[in-house]
C-alpha cells in the first residue's frame, strides 16, 4: 500500500478512485506516565513517554486506514492527513484520513 500526502503519487497515474478512508485510535496514558510528565513539567525537556505513545497510536491509525483502503481494492492512499484531538483529560485521538485510489 502506497501512502502519499500529495494529490497524486509522484511518477504514477491514478486510474480509479474510491473515496475517503480513515483510521482512528483513542489512546489514554496510564498514571505512571502522568507522574513522569509531572516531574518533567518542573525541569522541562522531551516527554519521551508521550512521544512514543502518540507515535504508536499514529501508526495504529495509519494501519487502520490502510485496512479500509485494502477492503476497497485500492493500492494507494493519497492526500493523507493527520489530526490529533484531545478527547478527555489524558486521552487523545489520532486520526488519519485520505483518499483510496488505484494507481498504475
Amino acid at each position: 500500500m502506497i501512502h502519499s500526502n500529495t494529490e497524486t503519487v509522484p511518477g504514477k497515474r491514478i486510474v480509479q478512485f474510491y473515496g475517503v478512508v480513515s483510521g482512528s485510535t483513542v489512546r489514554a496514558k496510564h498514571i505512571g506516565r502522568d507522574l513522569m510528565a509531572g516531574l518533567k513539567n518542573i525541569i522541562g525537556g522531551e516527554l519521551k513517554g508521550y512521544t512514543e505513545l502518540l507515535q504508536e497510536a499514529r501508526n495504529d491509525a495509519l494501519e487502520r486506514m490502510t485496512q479500509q483502503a485494502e477492503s476497497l481494492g485500492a493500492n494507494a492512499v493519497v492526500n493523507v492527513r493527520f489530526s490529533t484531538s484531545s478527547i478527555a483529560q489524558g486521552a487523545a485521538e489520532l486520526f488519519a484520513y485520505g483518499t483510496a485510489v488505484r494507481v498504475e
Partner: protein
Amino acid sequence: MDSAIQSAIEIGFPLSLLVFAYVVGSTIERRHYRRIRVRERQWQRVPAVTFRSTPASWQVSESGLVTGSVVISVDYFKRFLAGLRQFIGGRVKSYESMLDRARREAVLRLKADAMERGYNAVVGVRLETSRMANGRRNGQGIAGLEVLAYGTGLLLRQPPA
C-alpha cells in the same frame, strides 16, 4: 446494619445508573449506525474525496463550499470506561464508536448539503474534530465531540459513476 445499607446505596445507585446508561446508550448507538449505513448505501454514487485537483474529463459547471457537522455525546457507561482507562492506559475502545459515528455522520451531512445545493461530487474534503468541554468538572469531562466536514461541491455534466 446501617453501614451495610449505606454501602448498598453507595454502590447500587451508580451501578444502576451505569446499567441504564449502557442499555439505553447502546440501543441509541445501534439505531444510529443503522441509519448511517442506509444513507451511506443510498449516496454511494456521490463521491467525496480529499484531493483537490479534478481530472480533465470532468466538466465542472458549478462549484461551492459545502459543510456538514455533528456534535455527539457519549453515554455515562462509556465515560466510566474511559475514566478507568485513564488510570490503566491503553486503547480507549469505548470512545471509538462515538468518533466513528460522528465522522461518518458528518460526511453524510456533507454529502446531503452538497446534493441539496445540486452538486453531484465533493472534492477537497477536510475533517476537523474538536471537543466540547463539560463546564462543570473543570473542563475535564466531555460534553460532546464536534466533527466538521467541509469540502468543495462540484456540479459535473456527467455524474462520475
